[in-house]
Protein backbone atom coordinates (compact mmCIF):
# COMPACT_ATOMS: atom_id res chain seq x y z
CA UNK A 1 0.00 0.00 0.00
CA UNK A 2 2.88 2.37 0.76
CA UNK A 3 4.32 1.77 -2.72
CA UNK A 4 0.93 2.32 -4.34
CA UNK A 5 0.39 5.49 -2.34
CA UNK A 6 3.81 6.81 -3.36
CA UNK A 7 3.06 5.98 -6.98
CA UNK A 8 -0.24 7.86 -6.97
CA UNK A 9 1.12 10.76 -4.94
CA UNK A 10 4.13 11.09 -7.27
CA UNK A 11 1.81 10.97 -10.27
CA UNK A 12 -0.31 13.76 -8.81
CA UNK A 13 2.65 15.93 -7.83
CA UNK A 14 4.59 15.52 -11.07
CA UNK A 15 1.58 16.03 -13.31
CA UNK A 16 0.90 19.37 -11.57
CA UNK A 17 -2.79 18.61 -11.72
CA UNK A 18 -2.93 19.66 -8.05
CA UNK A 19 -2.40 23.27 -9.09
CA UNK A 20 -5.96 24.15 -10.20
CA UNK A 21 -7.54 22.83 -6.95
CA UNK A 22 -4.91 24.77 -4.98
CA UNK A 23 -5.83 27.91 -6.91
CA UNK A 24 -9.50 27.31 -6.17
CA UNK A 25 -8.71 26.90 -2.48
CA UNK A 26 -6.61 30.08 -2.59
CA UNK A 27 -9.45 31.99 -4.26
CA UNK A 28 -11.94 30.76 -1.65
CA UNK A 29 -9.60 31.89 1.12
CA UNK A 30 -8.83 35.22 -0.51
CA UNK A 31 -12.52 36.00 -0.99
CA UNK A 32 -13.87 34.51 2.24
CA UNK A 33 -11.18 35.39 4.75
CA UNK A 34 -10.18 38.97 5.54
CA UNK A 35 -7.27 39.73 7.82
CA UNK A 36 -8.40 40.89 11.24
CA UNK A 37 -11.75 39.08 11.25
CA UNK A 38 -12.66 36.73 14.11
CA UNK A 39 -10.49 33.65 13.89
CA UNK A 40 -13.19 31.02 14.33
CA UNK A 41 -15.37 32.51 11.56
CA UNK A 42 -12.43 32.55 9.18
CA UNK A 43 -11.44 29.00 10.08
CA UNK A 44 -15.00 27.92 9.32
CA UNK A 45 -14.73 29.44 5.85
CA UNK A 46 -11.33 27.82 5.26
CA UNK A 47 -12.60 24.39 6.31
CA UNK A 48 -15.74 24.70 4.18
CA UNK A 49 -13.58 25.62 1.17
CA UNK A 50 -11.62 22.44 1.63
CA UNK A 51 -14.66 20.24 0.93
CA UNK A 52 -15.10 20.95 -2.82
CA UNK A 53 -11.33 21.14 -3.23
CA UNK A 54 -10.93 17.63 -1.77
CA UNK A 55 -13.73 16.30 -3.96
CA UNK A 56 -11.97 17.75 -7.02
CA UNK A 57 -8.61 16.27 -5.98
CA UNK A 58 -10.22 12.85 -5.56
CA UNK A 59 -11.71 13.12 -9.04
CA UNK A 60 -8.28 14.02 -10.42
CA UNK A 61 -6.55 11.13 -8.65
CA UNK A 62 -8.97 8.42 -9.69
CA UNK A 63 -9.07 9.53 -13.32
CA UNK A 64 -5.45 10.52 -13.94
CA UNK A 65 -4.12 7.02 -14.59
CA UNK A 66 -4.65 5.88 -18.20
CA UNK A 67 -6.54 2.61 -18.63
CA UNK A 68 -3.52 0.55 -19.68
CA UNK A 69 -1.48 1.71 -16.68
CA UNK A 70 -4.47 1.15 -14.41
CA UNK A 71 -4.79 -2.43 -15.62
CA UNK A 72 -1.10 -3.02 -14.95
CA UNK A 73 -1.27 -1.57 -11.44
CA UNK A 74 -4.48 -3.43 -10.64
CA UNK A 75 -2.94 -6.75 -11.68
CA UNK A 76 0.10 -6.06 -9.50
CA UNK A 77 -1.79 -4.99 -6.39
CA UNK A 78 -5.49 -5.75 -6.75
CA UNK A 79 -8.14 -3.35 -7.96
CA UNK A 80 -9.50 -2.27 -4.53
CA UNK A 81 -6.03 -1.48 -3.25
CA UNK A 82 -5.15 0.51 -6.38
CA UNK A 83 -8.34 2.56 -6.06
CA UNK A 84 -7.85 3.09 -2.33
CA UNK A 85 -4.31 4.35 -2.93
CA UNK A 86 -5.63 6.94 -5.39
CA UNK A 87 -8.19 8.13 -2.82
CA UNK A 88 -5.52 8.31 -0.11
CA UNK A 89 -3.15 10.27 -2.34
CA UNK A 90 -5.90 12.81 -3.04
CA UNK A 91 -6.73 13.03 0.67
CA UNK A 92 -3.07 13.46 1.54
CA UNK A 93 -2.76 16.36 -0.87
CA UNK A 94 -5.99 17.92 0.44
CA UNK A 95 -4.67 17.45 3.97
CA UNK A 96 -1.53 19.42 3.10
CA UNK A 97 -3.69 22.21 1.65
CA UNK A 98 -5.90 22.14 4.74
CA UNK A 99 -3.01 22.37 7.21
CA UNK A 100 -1.40 25.24 5.29
CA UNK A 101 -4.72 27.06 4.97
CA UNK A 102 -5.55 26.64 8.66
CA UNK A 103 -2.14 27.89 9.76
CA UNK A 104 -2.31 30.95 7.51
CA UNK A 105 -5.88 31.79 8.50
CA UNK A 106 -5.10 31.42 12.21
CA UNK A 107 -2.09 33.70 11.77
CA UNK A 108 -3.87 36.53 9.97
CA UNK A 109 -7.18 36.54 11.87
CA UNK A 110 -8.20 38.46 14.97
CA UNK A 111 -7.98 36.14 17.98
CA UNK A 112 -11.24 37.26 19.47
CA UNK A 113 -14.87 36.24 19.43
CA UNK A 114 -17.20 37.85 16.88
CA UNK A 115 -18.36 40.47 19.38
CA UNK A 116 -14.74 41.24 20.22
CA UNK A 117 -15.26 40.65 23.93
CA UNK A 118 -13.66 37.26 24.48
CA UNK A 119 -10.08 36.27 23.61
CA UNK A 120 -9.64 33.05 21.69
CA UNK A 121 -6.36 31.19 22.24
CA UNK A 122 -4.66 30.76 18.82
CA UNK A 123 -3.52 27.21 19.54
CA UNK A 124 -6.92 25.88 20.52
CA UNK A 125 -8.53 27.82 17.66
CA UNK A 126 -6.04 26.32 15.22
CA UNK A 127 -6.62 22.84 16.62
CA UNK A 128 -10.38 23.23 16.30
CA UNK A 129 -9.88 24.58 12.77
CA UNK A 130 -7.82 21.53 11.86
CA UNK A 131 -10.48 19.18 13.21
CA UNK A 132 -13.24 20.93 11.26
CA UNK A 133 -11.00 20.87 8.18
CA UNK A 134 -10.58 17.12 8.70
CA UNK A 135 -14.35 16.65 8.87
CA UNK A 136 -14.74 18.62 5.62
CA UNK A 137 -11.88 16.70 4.02
CA UNK A 138 -13.45 13.34 4.84
CA UNK A 139 -16.85 14.47 3.60
CA UNK A 140 -15.30 15.93 0.44
CA UNK A 141 -13.40 12.71 -0.20
CA UNK A 142 -16.64 10.75 0.13
CA UNK A 143 -18.34 13.13 -2.32
CA UNK A 144 -15.48 12.84 -4.82
CA UNK A 145 -15.34 9.05 -4.53
CA UNK A 146 -19.10 8.74 -5.06
CA UNK A 147 -19.16 11.03 -8.08
CA UNK A 148 -16.28 9.64 -10.12
CA UNK A 149 -15.32 6.28 -11.48
CA UNK A 150 -16.11 3.49 -11.03
CA UNK A 151 -19.61 4.67 -10.09
CA UNK A 152 -19.95 7.59 -12.51
CA UNK A 153 -17.89 7.46 -15.65
CA UNK A 154 -19.23 10.23 -17.85
CA UNK A 155 -17.17 13.39 -17.45
CA UNK A 156 -20.13 15.77 -17.57
CA UNK A 157 -22.29 13.86 -15.10
CA UNK A 158 -19.35 13.33 -12.83
CA UNK A 159 -18.39 17.02 -12.69
CA UNK A 160 -21.98 18.22 -12.30
CA UNK A 161 -22.78 15.75 -9.54
CA UNK A 162 -19.51 16.48 -7.71
CA UNK A 163 -20.27 20.20 -7.67
CA UNK A 164 -23.89 19.68 -6.62
CA UNK A 165 -23.16 17.11 -3.95
CA UNK A 166 -20.29 19.18 -2.54
CA UNK A 167 -22.64 22.15 -2.22
CA UNK A 168 -25.34 20.01 -0.63
CA UNK A 169 -22.83 18.56 1.83
CA UNK A 170 -22.06 22.10 2.98
CA UNK A 171 -25.61 23.38 3.37
CA UNK A 172 -27.77 20.36 4.24
CA UNK A 173 -28.64 19.92 7.89
CA UNK A 174 -27.38 16.56 9.05
CA UNK A 175 -24.21 16.66 6.98
CA UNK A 176 -21.15 16.28 9.22
CA UNK A 177 -19.38 19.10 7.35
CA UNK A 178 -22.29 21.49 7.87
CA UNK A 179 -22.53 20.56 11.54
CA UNK A 180 -18.80 21.04 12.13
CA UNK A 181 -18.56 24.35 10.28
CA UNK A 182 -21.65 25.82 11.92
CA UNK A 183 -20.40 24.60 15.30
CA UNK A 184 -17.24 26.65 14.75
CA UNK A 185 -19.11 29.71 13.50
CA UNK A 186 -21.70 29.57 16.31
CA UNK A 187 -18.90 29.27 18.83
CA UNK A 188 -17.32 32.38 17.36
CA UNK A 189 -20.20 34.52 18.63
CA UNK A 190 -19.33 33.83 22.23
CA UNK A 191 -15.73 32.80 21.81
CA UNK A 192 -16.42 29.21 22.87
CA UNK A 193 -14.87 26.29 21.02
CA UNK A 194 -17.41 23.49 20.84
CA UNK A 195 -16.38 19.89 20.97
CA UNK A 196 -16.55 18.25 17.56
CA UNK A 197 -16.72 14.59 18.45
CA UNK A 198 -20.04 13.81 16.82
CA UNK A 199 -19.47 15.43 13.39
CA UNK A 200 -15.99 13.91 13.28
CA UNK A 201 -17.26 10.43 14.08
CA UNK A 202 -20.02 10.83 11.49
CA UNK A 203 -17.56 12.01 8.84
CA UNK A 204 -15.20 9.09 9.55
CA UNK A 205 -18.11 6.68 9.27
CA UNK A 206 -19.44 8.20 6.02
CA UNK A 207 -16.00 8.27 4.43
CA UNK A 208 -15.22 4.70 5.50
CA UNK A 209 -18.51 3.33 4.18
CA UNK A 210 -18.29 5.21 0.87
CA UNK A 211 -14.63 4.40 0.28
CA UNK A 212 -15.14 0.76 1.19
CA UNK A 213 -18.14 0.43 -1.12
CA UNK A 214 -16.44 2.24 -3.99
CA UNK A 215 -13.23 0.23 -3.73
CA UNK A 216 -15.10 -3.08 -3.72
CA UNK A 217 -17.32 -1.95 -6.60
CA UNK A 218 -14.16 -0.94 -8.41
CA UNK A 219 -13.33 -4.59 -8.97
CA UNK A 220 -16.90 -5.44 -9.87
CA UNK A 221 -17.14 -2.96 -12.68
CA UNK A 222 -13.54 -2.89 -13.80
Amino acid at each position, binding site marked *: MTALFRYHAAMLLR*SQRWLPPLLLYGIFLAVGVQGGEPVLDSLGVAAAALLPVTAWLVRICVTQE*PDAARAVTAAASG*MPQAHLAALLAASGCAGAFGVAGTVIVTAVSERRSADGLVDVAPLSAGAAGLLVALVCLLTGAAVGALCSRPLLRGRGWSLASTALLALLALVTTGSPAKAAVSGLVTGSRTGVIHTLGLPLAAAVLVAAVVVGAVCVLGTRRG
Partner: protein
Amino acid sequence: MGRRYGVGGPWVLRGVDLVLPSHRLIRVEGTNGTGKSTLLRLLAGIDSPTEGRVTGRPGRTAYVPERFPVALPFTAAGYLTHLGRIHGLRGARAAARADEWLERFGAARYARTALSELSKGTSQKVAVAQALLAGPELLVLDEAWTGLDSAARTQLDLAVAERVAAGGTVVFVDHDPRRLAGAADDVYALAGNALVRDTGVNSPAGQGPRVRIVAVGPPGAAPPEPLPGGPTYERGPAGGTVQLTVAAAHSDALLRALLAARPPWHIHEVSLEPATTGQAAS
Protein backbone atom coordinates in the same frame (compact mmCIF):
# COMPACT_ATOMS: atom_id res chain seq x y z
CA MET B 1 -17.10 -18.42 -14.26
CA GLY B 2 -18.88 -16.04 -16.61
CA ARG B 3 -18.68 -12.38 -17.48
CA ARG B 4 -21.04 -9.98 -19.14
CA TYR B 5 -21.07 -6.22 -19.31
CA GLY B 6 -24.22 -4.54 -18.11
CA VAL B 7 -27.12 -6.25 -16.39
CA GLY B 8 -28.86 -7.61 -19.48
CA GLY B 9 -25.89 -7.70 -21.83
CA PRO B 10 -24.82 -10.78 -23.76
CA TRP B 11 -22.44 -13.16 -22.04
CA VAL B 12 -18.87 -12.61 -23.22
CA LEU B 13 -17.77 -15.71 -21.33
CA ARG B 14 -19.92 -18.41 -19.82
CA GLY B 15 -19.18 -21.59 -17.98
CA VAL B 16 -15.43 -21.11 -18.10
CA ASP B 17 -13.63 -23.54 -15.84
CA LEU B 18 -9.88 -23.30 -15.89
CA VAL B 19 -7.10 -24.49 -13.60
CA LEU B 20 -3.71 -22.85 -13.90
CA PRO B 21 -1.05 -25.06 -12.31
CA SER B 22 2.48 -23.84 -11.66
CA HIS B 23 5.32 -24.69 -14.08
CA ARG B 24 2.89 -24.21 -16.96
CA LEU B 25 2.80 -22.17 -20.14
CA ILE B 26 -0.76 -21.78 -21.33
CA ARG B 27 -1.89 -20.41 -24.64
CA VAL B 28 -5.39 -19.08 -25.26
CA GLU B 29 -6.61 -18.95 -28.84
CA GLY B 30 -9.69 -17.56 -30.47
CA THR B 31 -10.73 -15.20 -33.22
CA ASN B 32 -11.28 -11.50 -32.61
CA GLY B 33 -14.06 -10.64 -30.20
CA THR B 34 -14.33 -14.07 -28.58
CA GLY B 35 -13.40 -12.71 -25.17
CA LYS B 36 -9.70 -13.57 -24.99
CA SER B 37 -8.81 -10.24 -23.45
CA THR B 38 -11.74 -10.45 -21.05
CA LEU B 39 -10.57 -13.88 -19.91
CA LEU B 40 -7.04 -12.61 -19.37
CA ARG B 41 -8.29 -9.58 -17.43
CA LEU B 42 -10.32 -11.90 -15.20
CA LEU B 43 -7.28 -14.09 -14.61
CA ALA B 44 -5.10 -11.10 -13.80
CA GLY B 45 -7.65 -9.72 -11.33
CA ILE B 46 -8.28 -6.50 -13.25
CA ASP B 47 -11.88 -7.49 -13.78
CA SER B 48 -14.06 -9.81 -11.77
CA PRO B 49 -16.52 -12.38 -13.06
CA THR B 50 -20.26 -11.72 -13.12
CA GLU B 51 -20.83 -15.27 -11.95
CA GLY B 52 -18.40 -17.72 -10.44
CA ARG B 53 -15.08 -16.93 -8.84
CA VAL B 54 -11.38 -16.79 -9.47
CA THR B 55 -9.54 -18.28 -6.50
CA GLY B 56 -5.97 -18.86 -5.43
CA ARG B 57 -4.41 -16.11 -7.52
CA PRO B 58 -0.80 -15.78 -6.34
CA GLY B 59 0.38 -12.62 -4.64
CA ARG B 60 2.77 -11.69 -7.40
CA THR B 61 0.66 -11.31 -10.51
CA ALA B 62 1.70 -9.26 -13.51
CA TYR B 63 -0.15 -8.25 -16.64
CA VAL B 64 1.00 -6.83 -19.95
CA PRO B 65 -1.61 -5.12 -22.11
CA GLU B 66 -1.48 -5.16 -25.89
CA ARG B 67 -0.88 -1.45 -26.12
CA PHE B 68 0.79 0.72 -23.54
CA PRO B 69 0.72 4.27 -24.91
CA VAL B 70 0.85 5.74 -21.48
CA ALA B 71 1.03 9.44 -20.78
CA LEU B 72 2.27 9.42 -17.21
CA PRO B 73 4.54 12.06 -15.71
CA PHE B 74 7.40 9.61 -15.11
CA THR B 75 10.59 8.62 -16.86
CA ALA B 76 10.78 5.00 -18.02
CA ALA B 77 13.10 4.09 -15.14
CA GLY B 78 11.04 6.10 -12.66
CA TYR B 79 7.85 4.34 -13.66
CA LEU B 80 9.49 0.93 -13.47
CA THR B 81 10.91 1.70 -10.02
CA HIS B 82 7.44 2.61 -8.77
CA LEU B 83 5.98 -0.54 -10.31
CA GLY B 84 8.81 -2.64 -8.88
CA ARG B 85 7.91 -1.35 -5.41
CA ILE B 86 4.23 -2.06 -6.04
CA HIS B 87 5.24 -5.59 -7.06
CA GLY B 88 6.94 -5.87 -3.68
CA LEU B 89 10.59 -5.05 -4.34
CA ARG B 90 12.53 -2.84 -1.95
CA GLY B 91 13.59 0.63 -3.11
CA ALA B 92 17.16 0.18 -4.35
CA ARG B 93 16.42 -3.27 -5.74
CA ALA B 94 13.44 -1.97 -7.67
CA ALA B 95 15.61 0.67 -9.35
CA ALA B 96 18.36 -1.85 -10.12
CA ARG B 97 15.91 -4.33 -11.63
CA ALA B 98 14.32 -1.55 -13.69
CA ASP B 99 17.67 -0.73 -15.30
CA GLU B 100 18.47 -4.42 -15.76
CA TRP B 101 15.24 -5.17 -17.63
CA LEU B 102 15.39 -2.04 -19.76
CA GLU B 103 18.86 -3.10 -20.78
CA ARG B 104 17.71 -6.61 -21.54
CA PHE B 105 15.06 -5.30 -23.91
CA GLY B 106 17.50 -2.88 -25.52
CA ALA B 107 15.84 0.22 -24.08
CA ALA B 108 18.53 1.25 -21.57
CA ARG B 109 19.17 4.54 -23.32
CA TYR B 110 15.53 5.55 -22.83
CA ALA B 111 15.69 5.06 -19.06
CA ARG B 112 15.66 8.82 -18.41
CA THR B 113 13.17 9.62 -21.16
CA ALA B 114 9.65 10.68 -20.22
CA LEU B 115 7.08 7.95 -20.87
CA SER B 116 5.03 10.32 -23.01
CA GLU B 117 7.96 10.79 -25.39
CA LEU B 118 8.63 7.10 -25.98
CA SER B 119 7.85 5.39 -29.27
CA LYS B 120 5.12 2.77 -29.34
CA GLY B 121 7.63 -0.06 -29.35
CA THR B 122 9.66 1.34 -26.48
CA SER B 123 6.50 1.91 -24.40
CA GLN B 124 5.66 -1.72 -24.97
CA LYS B 125 9.13 -2.68 -23.73
CA VAL B 126 8.43 -0.70 -20.56
CA ALA B 127 5.12 -2.55 -20.16
CA VAL B 128 6.85 -5.90 -20.55
CA ALA B 129 9.73 -4.94 -18.23
CA GLN B 130 7.26 -3.86 -15.52
CA ALA B 131 5.69 -7.30 -15.58
CA LEU B 132 8.95 -9.20 -15.40
CA LEU B 133 10.97 -7.21 -12.91
CA ALA B 134 9.65 -8.82 -9.77
CA GLY B 135 9.57 -12.40 -11.09
CA PRO B 136 5.79 -12.88 -11.11
CA GLU B 137 4.21 -16.19 -10.14
CA LEU B 138 1.38 -15.54 -12.57
CA LEU B 139 2.22 -13.67 -15.75
CA VAL B 140 -0.61 -12.71 -18.09
CA LEU B 141 0.38 -11.53 -21.57
CA ASP B 142 -2.27 -10.06 -23.85
CA GLU B 143 -0.49 -9.92 -27.22
CA ALA B 144 2.49 -8.50 -25.38
CA TRP B 145 4.76 -9.15 -28.37
CA THR B 146 2.90 -6.67 -30.57
CA GLY B 147 5.07 -3.69 -31.38
CA LEU B 148 8.31 -5.18 -30.05
CA ASP B 149 11.33 -5.48 -32.34
CA SER B 150 12.58 -8.98 -33.08
CA ALA B 151 15.41 -8.89 -30.53
CA ALA B 152 12.95 -7.87 -27.81
CA ARG B 153 10.50 -10.57 -28.92
CA THR B 154 13.22 -13.16 -28.50
CA GLN B 155 14.04 -11.79 -25.06
CA LEU B 156 10.39 -11.98 -24.09
CA ASP B 157 10.20 -15.60 -25.32
CA LEU B 158 13.23 -16.40 -23.16
CA ALA B 159 11.88 -14.52 -20.16
CA VAL B 160 8.62 -16.45 -20.45
CA ALA B 161 10.49 -19.76 -20.50
CA GLU B 162 12.49 -18.61 -17.47
CA ARG B 163 9.33 -17.80 -15.54
CA VAL B 164 7.87 -21.22 -16.33
CA ALA B 165 11.12 -22.95 -15.39
CA ALA B 166 11.17 -21.03 -12.10
CA GLY B 167 7.77 -22.45 -11.20
CA GLY B 168 5.56 -19.67 -12.49
CA THR B 169 2.44 -19.84 -14.60
CA VAL B 170 2.32 -17.88 -17.84
CA VAL B 171 -0.90 -17.36 -19.77
CA PHE B 172 -0.68 -15.71 -23.15
CA VAL B 173 -2.62 -14.70 -26.21
CA ASP B 174 -0.87 -13.86 -29.45
CA HIS B 175 -2.10 -13.42 -32.98
CA ASP B 176 1.01 -15.15 -34.34
CA PRO B 177 0.32 -18.91 -34.21
CA ARG B 178 4.06 -19.62 -34.20
CA ARG B 179 4.61 -17.62 -31.02
CA LEU B 180 6.38 -19.93 -28.52
CA ALA B 181 5.52 -22.75 -30.91
CA GLY B 182 5.66 -26.14 -29.29
CA ALA B 183 6.45 -24.63 -25.91
CA ALA B 184 2.91 -24.24 -24.59
CA ASP B 185 1.92 -26.99 -22.17
CA ASP B 186 -1.78 -26.40 -22.63
CA VAL B 187 -3.69 -24.74 -25.42
CA TYR B 188 -7.23 -23.51 -24.88
CA ALA B 189 -9.53 -22.11 -27.52
CA LEU B 190 -12.40 -19.68 -27.01
CA ALA B 191 -15.36 -20.34 -29.26
CA GLY B 192 -18.75 -18.74 -28.80
CA ASN B 193 -18.45 -17.77 -25.18
CA ALA B 194 -17.02 -21.04 -23.93
CA LEU B 195 -13.49 -22.20 -23.35
CA VAL B 196 -12.47 -25.58 -24.75
CA ARG B 197 -9.23 -27.39 -24.34
CA ASP B 198 -7.35 -27.81 -27.57
CA THR B 199 -5.39 -31.05 -27.87
CA GLY B 200 -2.74 -29.05 -29.64
CA VAL B 201 -2.10 -31.57 -32.43
CA ASN B 202 -3.83 -29.59 -35.11
CA SER B 203 -2.70 -26.28 -33.83
CA PRO B 204 0.45 -24.66 -35.17
CA ALA B 205 1.35 -23.99 -31.55
CA GLY B 206 1.87 -27.72 -31.11
CA GLN B 207 4.70 -27.72 -33.59
CA GLY B 208 7.74 -25.56 -34.09
CA PRO B 209 11.48 -25.76 -33.83
CA ARG B 210 12.90 -28.08 -31.21
CA VAL B 211 16.34 -28.23 -29.75
CA ARG B 212 18.21 -31.48 -29.22
CA ILE B 213 20.59 -31.55 -26.27
CA VAL B 214 23.00 -34.39 -25.72
CA ALA B 215 24.18 -34.49 -22.14
CA VAL B 216 25.98 -36.85 -19.84
CA GLY B 217 25.31 -37.13 -16.17
CA PRO B 218 26.98 -38.91 -13.29
CA PRO B 219 27.14 -42.69 -13.94
CA GLY B 220 23.75 -44.29 -13.46
CA ALA B 221 22.00 -41.01 -12.56
CA ALA B 222 18.67 -40.10 -14.12
CA PRO B 223 18.17 -36.52 -15.31
CA PRO B 224 16.96 -34.21 -12.55
CA GLU B 225 13.21 -33.86 -12.30
CA PRO B 226 11.19 -31.92 -13.26
CA LEU B 227 13.05 -30.45 -16.22
CA PRO B 228 11.75 -27.25 -17.83
CA GLY B 229 9.69 -27.72 -20.98
CA GLY B 230 9.03 -31.43 -20.38
CA PRO B 231 11.70 -32.77 -22.75
CA THR B 232 11.56 -36.19 -24.39
CA TYR B 233 14.36 -38.58 -23.41
CA GLU B 234 16.29 -40.96 -25.65
CA ARG B 235 19.55 -42.83 -25.29
CA GLY B 236 22.27 -40.60 -26.77
CA PRO B 237 24.61 -41.46 -29.62
CA ALA B 238 27.59 -42.11 -27.36
CA GLY B 239 27.56 -44.49 -24.41
CA GLY B 240 26.15 -43.04 -21.18
CA THR B 241 24.71 -39.97 -22.83
CA VAL B 242 21.07 -38.91 -22.85
CA GLN B 243 19.46 -37.05 -25.70
CA LEU B 244 16.78 -34.60 -24.63
CA THR B 245 14.52 -32.87 -27.12
CA VAL B 246 12.59 -29.78 -26.10
CA ALA B 247 10.74 -26.86 -27.68
CA ALA B 248 13.27 -24.21 -28.69
CA ALA B 249 11.83 -21.65 -26.28
CA HIS B 250 12.65 -23.87 -23.30
CA SER B 251 16.17 -24.85 -24.38
CA ASP B 252 18.00 -22.20 -22.33
CA ALA B 253 16.04 -23.03 -19.21
CA LEU B 254 16.68 -26.72 -19.75
CA LEU B 255 20.42 -26.20 -20.20
CA ARG B 256 20.51 -24.05 -17.10
CA ALA B 257 18.69 -26.74 -15.11
CA LEU B 258 21.10 -29.44 -16.28
CA LEU B 259 24.20 -27.37 -15.55
CA ALA B 260 22.87 -26.28 -12.18
CA ALA B 261 21.87 -29.80 -11.11
CA ARG B 262 23.68 -31.32 -8.11
CA PRO B 263 25.80 -33.12 -9.27
CA PRO B 264 25.96 -31.14 -12.52
CA TRP B 265 25.44 -32.58 -15.96
CA HIS B 266 27.90 -32.11 -18.77
CA ILE B 267 26.56 -30.84 -22.10
CA HIS B 268 27.94 -32.71 -25.12
CA GLU B 269 26.06 -31.17 -27.95
CA VAL B 270 23.26 -28.74 -28.70
CA SER B 271 21.60 -28.75 -32.07
CA LEU B 272 18.45 -27.40 -33.67
CA GLU B 273 15.95 -29.88 -34.98
CA PRO B 274 13.93 -28.47 -37.89
CA ALA B 275 10.26 -27.67 -37.33
CA THR B 276 8.06 -30.69 -37.88
CA THR B 277 5.36 -30.21 -40.44
CA GLY B 278 2.60 -32.39 -41.75
CA GLN B 279 1.93 -34.09 -38.43
CA ALA B 280 -1.59 -32.83 -38.53
CA ALA B 281 -2.26 -34.61 -41.80
CA SER B 282 -1.21 -38.04 -40.60
